[in-house]
Every structure is written in structure tokens, then in C-alpha cells.
């Protein structure tokens, strides 16, 4: 079976088009937005888009880990919410009127952050153990977990004297994570997201652990035969993911200066959508950090841009849905060859 050179060229062009079709279409859409409203191209808009992408990017990078295993985490968004409420409840300014813990002094800000991270990391470990040891489908296990996490969050949030009231009055040493601007321009959020991106890229591409994640996602049985500790990898992946979404929850508190139990709802869907648009395969084993960054940024630009040119927000939902369906359809096409 000889393949002729010109035929190879044709296949590669076709493959390139299937791979990049969505990205190209979205870039075209952005160009249309710019043509309609040239004012879109200005530094203020770019700053807004960077800031708005930051937290989403951290959640999406978190979700990238289980997606690489061919899994998912539907409790991701609710974990964002739980981390947010825990941190907010313990980091209210001393003189604030309705405090969650009225007698709590100004403890070092790192303490609530560590507590929130430890709690969600524990949730991640349970997710990982359900999937690795009990062989539950990730979709179902984490779906159940999302309800549990939300329940826990609501119970905590309804505790006296808070009685399910929004938590406000967040201390400045936490909100500084969002308010401080480097050179008076770029929010610290963007810097944190960039650091998380670099670390994720390093872990996935440069470490044995990262290579093992791709191997387990690509063919779990082959990985096991090759001496990879499959269960350890699965649990570690879900713990890492939870730590990242927990971090996102903390940053949401910093960004908004408060929290309530609805925080983070459906964030995992936006994250998964961004990953898929960025070329992460839902079947596992395929996906790059750069793709996720691209996916998140494109989503933000489009929703910001549609609002910018005055499109009804309900239409934005429809556009987003169409993008997701197209992305998944293309992913399936790639896999089935």
C-alpha cells in the first residue's frame, strides 16, 4: 500500500482543517465583532478579558487533569463554591457588622486559605478513590459528589448566626489578590493564572507523573502492564484538580469581595467546554495546556464581544451551546477517524 506524496498532502490539509475548524470559525467570529465595533480593539477591553479569563482558566486547567484520564469532575463548580464560602467565612474584617464568626479575631489570611484547600483536596481524594477503587464511572461518581458538596455548603452557610446571608466585608489582605495591579495595569489574578498555567504545563510535559497521566488516559491497561501505579495516578489527579478549583474559589472571593453558597455553580461546564474547544479529547489521553488557554480566552472574548456589540445575553447562551456541540462533534469525528 503505497501512499503517494500529493495524497499525503491532501490528508494532512484535511486533518488540519478538522482539527482547527472550530478555532478558525471562532477567530472569524471575533473578526466580525471587531468589524462591527472597531472600539473592541482597545487596551481596556484586553485588560478586562485577561482578568475575566483568569479564574476560568484556573478551573479549566483543573478540569484538564481528569479529562486527560478520560474522566470528568461534575463537582468542580460546587467545590469552587465550598472553598469560597469557607474562606469568606473566616476572612471578614474585624469591625464588619454581620460576621460569620462574630468572635473570630484577624487570623493570618493563610489559615482560612489552607483550611479551604485541605477540605476540597479531601473531596478530590474521595472522588479519586470512588473512581479508582470502586470503579465508578467518573460522570456518576462526581455528579453524586456535586450534590453532596452543595448540601454541605448550604448547611454550613445556613449556620447561626449567618442564617444563609451573603458573606461580605472581606479583609483587604485577601481582596488585594484581585485589586493589586502590577504597574497599575495588570491584576494580580492574571499573574496567578499565568503561574498556574506554567506549573500545569511543566507537570504534564516534563515530569514522570505527567507522562503517566497521558498513558493512563490513553490506555489504562497498557499503563498498568508498564508498571504505572494507576490507582495512585487517578487519586492524585483528582486531588490536584480539587486544589486548583479550590484556589479558583478563593480568588472568586478576592475578586467579588464576598461569597454565597451559589458561587461556582456550573463552572465545571464552562471549563469542560473551554477544554474541548481547545482540543482536549473527552475520551482521554489527548490535550494540551496551550489548547486550554486558547479555549478559555476564545470563550471570554466571544461572550465579552457579543455583549460589547449589544447582543441579547440569551442569544449568547445559544451561541455558546452551539460552540460546545460543534466542538464535541469534531472531537468524536477525530476519534472515529
Amino acid at each position: 500500500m503505497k501512499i503517494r506524496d500529493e495524497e499525503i498532502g491532501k490528508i494532512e490539509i484535511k486533518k488540519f482543517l478538522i482539527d482547527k475548524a472550530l478555532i478558525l470559525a471562532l477567530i472569524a467570529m471575533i473578526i466580525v465583532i471587531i468589524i462591527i465595533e472597531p472600539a473592541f480593539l482597545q487596551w481596556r477591553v484586553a485588560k478586562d478579558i485577561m482578568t475575566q479569563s483568569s479564574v476560568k482558566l484556573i478551573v479549566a486547567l483543573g478540569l484538564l487533569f481528569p479529562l486527560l484520564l478520560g474522566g470528568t469532575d461534575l463537582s468542580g463548580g460546587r467545590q469552587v463554591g465550598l472553598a469560597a464560602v469557607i474562606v469568606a467565612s473566616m476572612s471578614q474584617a474585624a469591625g464588619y457588622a454581620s460576621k460569620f464568626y462574630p468572635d473570630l479575631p484577624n487570623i493570618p489570611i493563610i489559615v482560612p486559605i489552607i483550611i479551604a484547600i485541605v477540605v476540597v483536596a479531601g473531596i478530590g481524594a474521595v472522588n479519586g478513590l470512588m473512581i479508582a477503587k470502586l470503579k465508578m464511572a467518573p460522570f456518576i461518581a462526581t455528579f453524586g459528589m456535586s450534590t453532596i458538596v452543595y448540601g454541605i455548603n448550604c448547611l454550613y452557610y445556613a449556620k447561626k448566626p449567618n442564617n444563609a446571608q451573603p458573606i461580605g466585608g472581606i479583609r483587604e489582605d485577601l481582596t488585594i489578590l484581585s485589586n493589586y495591579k502590577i504597574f497599575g495595569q495588570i491584576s494580580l489574578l492574571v499573574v496567578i493564572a499565568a503561574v498556574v498555567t506554567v506549573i500545569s504545563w511543566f507537570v504534564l510535559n516534563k515530569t514522570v507523573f505527567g507522562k503517566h497521566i497521558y498513558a493512563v488516559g490513553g490506555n489504562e491497561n497498557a499503563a498498568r502492564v508498564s508498571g504505572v501505579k494507576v490507582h495512585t495516578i487517578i487519586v492524585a489527579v483528582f486531588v490536584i484538580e480539587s486544589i486548583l478549583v479550590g484556589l479558583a474559589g478563593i480568588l472568586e472571593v478576592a475578586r467579588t469581595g464576598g461569597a454565597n453558597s451559589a458561587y461556582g455553580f456550573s463552572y465545571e461546564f464552562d471549563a469542560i467546554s473551554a477544554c474541548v474547544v481547545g482540543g482536549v479529547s473527552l475520551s482521554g489521553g489527548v490535550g494540551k495546556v496551550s489548547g486550554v488557554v486558547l479555549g478559555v480566552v476564545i470563550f471570554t472574548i466571544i461572550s465579552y464581544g457579543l455583549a460589547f456589540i449589544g447582543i441579547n445575553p440569551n442569544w449568547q447562551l445559544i451561541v455558546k451551546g452551539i460552540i460546545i456541540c460543534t466542538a464535541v462533534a469534531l472531537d468524536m469525528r477525530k476519534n472515529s477517524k
Partner: protein
Amino acid sequence: MQEYRLKMDNITKTFPGVRALDDVKLYIKPGSVHALIGENGAGKSTLMKCLFGIYKQEGGTIEIDGEPIRISDTQSALKSGISMIHQELNPIPNRTVADNIWVGRYIKNKLIVNEKLMEKKTQELLKELDFDISPKVMARELSVSQLQAMEIAKAVSYNAKIIIMDEPTSSLTIAETKHLFRIIRQMRDEGRSIIYISHKLEEMFEIADEVTVMRDGKYIGTWEISKITIDHVIEQMVGRSMEERFPKSEQAPLPEVMLKVENITSPNPRSFKDISFDLHKGEILGIGGLVGAQRTEMVESLFGLRPIASGVLYKEGKLVSNKTPLQAIENGFALLTEERRATGIVPMLSVNDNTLIASYKKFTNWCPGVINKRKSTKSAAAVCKSMNVKTPRMSAEIQNLSGGNQQKVLVGRWLLTDSNILILDEPTRGVDVGAKYEIYKIIRELARKGNSIIMVSSEMPELLGMSDRILVMCDGHITGILKSEEASQVEIMRLATRFTVESTAMEAEK
């Protein structure tokens, strides 16, 4: 009567980038078994899929009994009297045998399915073919050979004149194969034509009347089986003369014992029991037996993939315990699994990553867990080169390589782990003739360097041609260990079928 039942002429089919069939012809006589052979990728399956309407041919003509026909889909193929039994059987597991046979054309009284008549017809059909299966049993409860029997019954129920069988014996025992051959001969004597695709040349010489050889999507020739030799067929398949099928051993195994296995027994009472043997340095120990002899289970237990209930392993005199594959690898064991796709390759990863997956830990530098990319890619490239892996580049996805090249990458994977006991489970399964020879050469070379090899194989010539000694298993027991110079196919078969009284009784109960 026409001289030919089926005439396919000038058949052409292209896939994006590949000319899969190039001006191919195939003439089949009525009442004959016609073997269709060629290496993997020669176009046999594509040709048959064109005939059965799964693919549309782009050029050429098909005639049945002198009548030109057009086959647009499988329904029209079935109407024209063509039936196909696929290599991968696809039954509907939770329906009965009768349902599976008549699906899509249920026997009806007006609107209602006549179950009674359908069962009766199925019963008659199965009896005629001498298959002992109840029409009412669920397909999921059938063994592979019974499923195949069901498919044959289905083909006959279509009153097919031409039955295509794609690698029908790939998962059958010897006894089941014999039964299948009897059925094939019976169908042939009824005047049907059988197109028989197989890699097993010995088998083909037993069953076929004529043979057509294909190579690189082209028609090479058709011969009467009685007028051709096996070596000639291989020559036609690979397109070059092949002096020998197996490279010669250059040195005898060393006297030192590499691995001593003592009385290992599976926790599963139906699996292997009391396995003891010595493996010497530089030795190739073949393991023969029928399907179901528990050979794969036994070697996978040596590697820690399955548990053992009792028994011990000594490596170079020292007690070792392989509870997990990771421990086994650290103890210098390697396992090339039987199912390359299921437990070997990680399809969407590169050749480079697939080569390194078991040995990344070796290639870390300044910080534990961080890979030294330069060192690792260099080693992977070197080992793939030494295996003569044919790949456009090391970053190509392994799923785009041929079976033989994938297998070589997997052998390379284990060479990088510094193992010296290599367990190869069916190392040449699904590998074409040319690549087989290269893999044999690699195995020989590894043994020459003092590694010890355990090779499970279901191909008799491979066992006899490659092994220093052959261990034969039957029903979970070792029934004999033969020196290769005193071994023969007959002797191996005698040991492979030496069921104990107890197991024969169990068999009879079922």
C-alpha cells in the same frame, strides 16, 4: 453450469491516500474452498468488504453464475447469495440464538412473530450442521466457537451460495477447528463456495482447494493447493524468496539458572496448578498448549498482573516476589502481552512516549520526577533504530504504524527497563510474515546476549523453530517439557490434549 460461481474483475478501491485495491481479480469455483491470503494490509479484507457491500468498489465488475450484479449494501449482497462471517463476531448478547439468526427477517404471521416456527427452523438448521446449541439460549452465554457456529447457521439460513470466512479459527481450539473444517467440507459438498481468509498457512493447506495470493492491494495469482508448496506461497506473499522462516540459533543456552519457578498455583481453581520449571540464561523456553490451557494466566501471574495463591520464584538463586507489575519490572521481568491493542500500545501517544512509558523513572535528572528529555528521546530513538522500527518520525502516533512495527516498539519498551527475563505472549500475533522474521531475529539476539525468554505461542512451527525447550500445558497443568530436537508437532499435540481424568469428567458434565 458456469465454470465459476463468482467472478470479480478489475476491482479498484482507494481510501484517502491509499490505493487499497488495484485492479484485483478473484475467480471462485462452485463447491470449493478458496483460500485468500496475503500479509496484513494486502487488501484481503477490503476486497471481501467490497464483495459484501460494506465498502463500495470504485471500478470493476462482479458476476455471480455469469450474471453481472451490483452490490450497493449488505442487504443486496445477502440477496445475491453472499454471506460473511466476520473475524470479530458481533452478536446481540441479550437475545436468543434464534433471534440472532433471524433478526431483520423474523418469521411472521401477519404482524406477529411466530416464535415457535422460528425456533423449530433454527433447531433444524443447527442439527443439520451438527451444532449442539439450543435455539433458546441467550447469545451472551455462548463460547466463541458456539457464536461462530451461530453465524454459520445464519449464513446457511440465508441460503448463501458464497460464504466468506475471515480468520475463523483465530480463537478456536484444535478440536473446535476440526469440527469447523468438517462443517466447511459439508457446505462445500452441498455446492457452496467458501472464501477462507487466514494467516495460518498450515491450516489453509489442510482445508482449501485453491488459493489466491494478494500483495500490496494487487492480485498476485491463483493456484490449486495440490500444485503448490508452503514456501512458494510465502514467497508470493512477501514478494521475495525466504530461505528460512526462522533464524538459526547461534549458541546453546548457558547452564546457569536465571529463573526457578516452584509450584505456583492460581487462586482460581479452574486456572493453573503446581507449575514448576527452570529457565536458563540465554534460553528461549517455548510454552505450547491449546486455547484454555491457562498459559496466558500463568505467565501474567509470573509478572504480577494476576495473583498467585502459593508457590515461589527464585531469580538467580534469590527469592523474588512479583505482586504487581511494578515489582516485576524492578526485579528485571518484562511482559509483552497477548493483546497488543488492549494492553500494549497507548494508541494516541507518540512512538517516543510508547517506547519510554515503562522506563521514564530512569531518565530523570536534577529533581526527582522531572524527565531529562534529551537523554530519554535519545535512548528511545536508539532502541527503536536497533529494532528497525519503521516510522516516519519518533513523534508519530503509534496507532498509525503497522502491527509488526508496533510490536517492535513494545519490545523496545522492555529493553529500556533493563529486564533480563522477557515473557513474550504470542509475540507474532497479527504481525505479517516479513516483520515476523525480524521479530524472531530480535528474540534470538536477546537470548544470545544472555537474556532469558519465555515465549507463549499457539503456532506450532514458531514453537518448534524458535525454542530451546518447549513446555506444554493442558488444562492448567504442565504435561511435559520437551527438548526442541526431540519435539514434533505430534508430540506437542499429544501433551497438549492430555487432559486428566478429573478435568475430562468436568468437561463431560458441562
